């Protein structure tokens, strides 16, 4: 399977009046055709900023993409997303790369009908006529499970429920059969039964369209059901990346271990005490010369305070940024 997106050493900072916010500190990952990658992290992990950097959605003052490359295999050939002009990025957004954000209320224009909003994408990126776009839109609406699509074409976003609105956003995202769909917490604001519907829909569409998906979330339950590979981020850095089963069975980074331990599970008989991670997420204003997780880590030793651990291979297709070997119970030998 060929690689369609390869991000290397992305660094994004925000120059604010309080100082420089080191939002993203060297993220690298690859995405293959049709693959689903989940990016997991809490607030301040940099997961959303990473995606926004790739899509050109960062306001450029105060933000600045300091370095890195993002090679994207678009239909027009290989290009570096980080070096494209705003016009070129606009072409790609919605066309080659679709996106679904958390809050459909802010993504959808309240004064346009949903039909118009979907058709707009088709007209712009695929050059369809108004009639053709309308026909295609109605097909899309039924594909995403909206009943009575011909009637609903003329409806406005406020007439839909949260779950339905998110389906409309998904319709816009898949309208031009993109190569990648980037979804940033698309189900976090939804009720759990509606979330289940949307995730099922996503799975169907993903299989039908063979599209690659980057799913950003903090919910490790959702990840378990959707992802093929998982990238865990903390403090603007990647801390672990592995295939999904491997990650849950053999986490190699103390943060991942902590996250998994902090989750209650439905099927646990006894409610054992949750393993919480002490402390709070890091302040990104302070540039670090050591591991960002060190003071919350139960296993930190002196090397952790002296250097920033790089991502090293710790298993089959499994990399982690940590000097401590959890299995061995001691520092990793290089």
């Amino acid at each position, binding site marked *: 399977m060929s690689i369609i997106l390869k991000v290397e050493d992305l660094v994004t900072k925000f120059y604010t*009046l*309080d100082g420089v916010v080191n939002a993203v500190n060297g993220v690298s990952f690859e995405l293959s055709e049709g693959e689903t990658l989940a990016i997991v992290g809490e607030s301040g992990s940099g997961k959303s900023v990473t995606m926004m950097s790739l899509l050109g959605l960062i306001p450029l003052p105060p933000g600045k993409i300091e370095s890195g490359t993002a090679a994207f295999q678009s239909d027009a050939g290989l290009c570096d997303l980080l070096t494209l002009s705003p016009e070129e990025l606009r072409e790609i957004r919605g066309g080659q790369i679709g996106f679904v954000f958390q809050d459909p209320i802010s993504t959808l224009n309240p004064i346009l009908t949903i039909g118009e909003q979907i058709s707009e994408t088709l007209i712009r990126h695929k050059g369809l006529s108004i009639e053709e776009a309308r026909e295609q839109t109605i097909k899309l609406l039924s594909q995403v499970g909206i009943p009575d699509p011909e009637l609903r074409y003329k409806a406005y976003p406020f007439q839909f429920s949260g779950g339905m609105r998110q389906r409309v956003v998904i319709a816009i995202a898949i309208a031009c059969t993109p190569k990648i769909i980037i979804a940033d917490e698309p189900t976090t604001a939804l009720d759990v039964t509606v979330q289940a519907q949307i995730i099922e829909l996503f799975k169907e569409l993903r299989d039908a369209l063979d599209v690659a998906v980057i799913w950003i979330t903090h919910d490790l339950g959702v990840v378990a059901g959707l992802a093929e590979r998982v990238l865990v981020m903390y403090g603007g850095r990647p801390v672990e990346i592995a295939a999904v089963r491997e990650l849950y069975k053999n986490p190699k980074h103390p943060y991942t271990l902590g996250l998994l331990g902090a989750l209650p599970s439905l099927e646990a008989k006894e409610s054992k005490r949750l393993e*919480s991670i*002490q*402390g*709070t997420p*890091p*302040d990104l204003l*302070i540039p670090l*010369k*050591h591991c960002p997780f060190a*003071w*919350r880590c139960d296993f930190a030793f002196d090397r952790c*305070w002296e250097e920033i651990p790089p991502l090293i291979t710790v298993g089959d297709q499994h990399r982690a940024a940590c000097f401590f070997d959890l299995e061995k119970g001691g520092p990793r030998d290089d």
Partner: protein
Amino acid sequence: MADKEPKTQQTVDSLLDTEKTFKDRLAYFGRFLWRDRGGVIGLTVFLIVVFAAVFAPVITKQDPFTQDLRASKLPPAWKEEGTWEHPFGTDSLGKDIFSRVIYGTRVSLMVGLFGVLIAGILGMLIGAIAGYAGGRLDAAIMGGVNLILSLPYLLFVVFIATVLGRSLINVILIFGITDAPIFARVTRGEVLRIRESGYVESAISAGARWPTIIFDHIIPNLIGPLITLATFEMSAMIFYEAGLGFLGLSVPPNEYPTWGNMLAAGRKYMTSYPWIASFPGLAIMFTSLGMNLLGDWLRDVLDPRMRRSRK
């Protein structure tokens, strides 16, 4: 014992961090000044005006009322016929413009401060009752407020001036009453917002009665927006006074020098002796601008949501 909060990032990093040098501190101060440059300018202007009002006799030895027809219509000092005795020149009756501008700050400040005081207290009371009571009382009060707002302002002013005569106190009263509705509206809005906020609900669930809620919770959170509004309204009142003076409805000129009166007097000389109206005009402009900048800055600074969460 509960999961303890371990050493926070701040304390640990301060062990590892290098010390802040003097240059660092200077840089931080410089960034602070630059970021808040609007506020710095505004505050400076305000302080200059206050200083001028308080120390007027020290700043200028000229009497603002003395007429000297021989020295009338003199241009500003840097022009050919000007003299440094009258730095801004003189008006048609020979009164020194510079001292009149300086003494004029007193009127502007008094009108602004007391006008806002009256409008603020009146408006705050009305708005707070309306916002807190809600329902029919609220609707009735706001109906009354809107009625006052819809009164033709000028008519009202002329009426007061005619019936009660022209004086500084009357000007202040007029502004106080006509501006109160704005304070009432803002107060009501803020009270509504605060009333619905989580901490008021929390206080109620702890058993708080309405005096506690009003004095401990609502009023402290009102002060920020109201101070900001007060600053803007002060600036507006200085403007209005100029307008009134222009129409000849402000303080009689032989009582106090006001910028508005000076504008009125200098109007007919705009093409021949422009400085007579220009200097008071500039004074009005800078004072208003300064107050507005100050108000903007105060709004940002006093809003707890905007405060940086530095640990």
